[in-house]
């Protein structure tokens, strides 16, 4: 994982700037530090480094998929497909949602090793949708605004994983720090 090593080196630079105590740590497993960052986009409107909550919704059914292996990316996709099909999403929105889930589940597996995907059936007014929350305790995303704008690429995909996900979903929120990353996305049936 050269990407992870690069993250660590950058993290070490951040540590020296932000925390003199932490700067002594140069190990590749313990000394990572990512400044807490967040990014929110809600139906076109977007904010970086703001931690305001997403609009309120009512949650109904929910479920969790543990992501601990590559095969769990498939499980996450299949679970999501079943849920959004039961919510009668049209085929294009099923494909958009499942594609976004595939990207996010793969990110969890590749960069954090393990994490969870939790899905909720959501309601607001007379609309129904799905909310998906991806949580991991990995090293965090070093440069969040670059990652969500597509100017940041690893060797694993076409370099548009997070940005692409943002395009496909109605609501997109990332919170990342040295303690891990949470990505929350929503898609409404229309």
């Amino acid at each position, binding site marked *: 994982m050269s990407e992870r090593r690069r993250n660590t080196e950058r993290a070490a630079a951040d540590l020296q700037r932000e925390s003199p105590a932490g700067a002594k740590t140069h190990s590749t497993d313990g000394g990572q530090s990512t400044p807490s960052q967040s990014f929110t986009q809600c139906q076109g409107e977007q904010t970086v480094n703001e931690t305001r909550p997403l609009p309120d919704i009512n949650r109904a059914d929910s479920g969790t998929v543990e992501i601990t292996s*590559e*095969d769990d*990316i*498939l499980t996450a*996709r*299949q679970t999501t*497909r079943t849920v959004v099909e039961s919510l009668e999403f049209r*085929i*294009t929105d*099923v*494909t*958009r949602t*499942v*594609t976004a889930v*595939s*990207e996010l589940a*793969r990110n969890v597996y590749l960069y954090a090793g393990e994490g969870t995907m939790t899905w909720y059936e959501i309601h607001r007014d007379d609309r129904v949708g799905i909310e998906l929350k991806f949580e991991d305790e990995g090293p965090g995303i070093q440069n969040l605004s670059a990652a969500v704008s*597509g100017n940041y690429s690893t060797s*694993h*995909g*076409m*370099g*548009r*994983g997070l940005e*692409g996900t943002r*395009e*496909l979903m109605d609501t997109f929120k990332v919170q990342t720090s040295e303690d891990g990353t949470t990505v929350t996305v929503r898609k409404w049936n229309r």
Partner: protein
Amino acid sequence: MTSTRSTSITKLYDVLLTNFPAEPTDRAVDTLREELLTLVEAEEPRAVIIDVSRVTTLDSFFARVIAETAQMVQLLGGEPIIVGVRPSVAITAAQLGYTFDDITTARDVDHALETVGISVTQETQTDE
């Protein structure tokens, strides 16, 4: 993960035809690519048809694998043809900005065979 193993490669005249599975694991996709390239080297086909009509999710990883596989087929001297992209997949791929530059695409396998000069001619029959 039984549903992910149903990959297949068929030889039709001097054309190889491969089906990408509907919901593959990353590993299944890697395996299929290796098998395909080994066969391309052995059979020296004129064209390689990559049928993605069963693919319902084309995320950045699969998109990269398909684009790379096509490039590798080109490097080995064959002509790659991607067929059967579903409309919902095409919409999503376009929205994500995936491009398959310099790769021939076709509506279906028949159309792909026609583009490399293979077609079936049938004696006119009257069924009535």
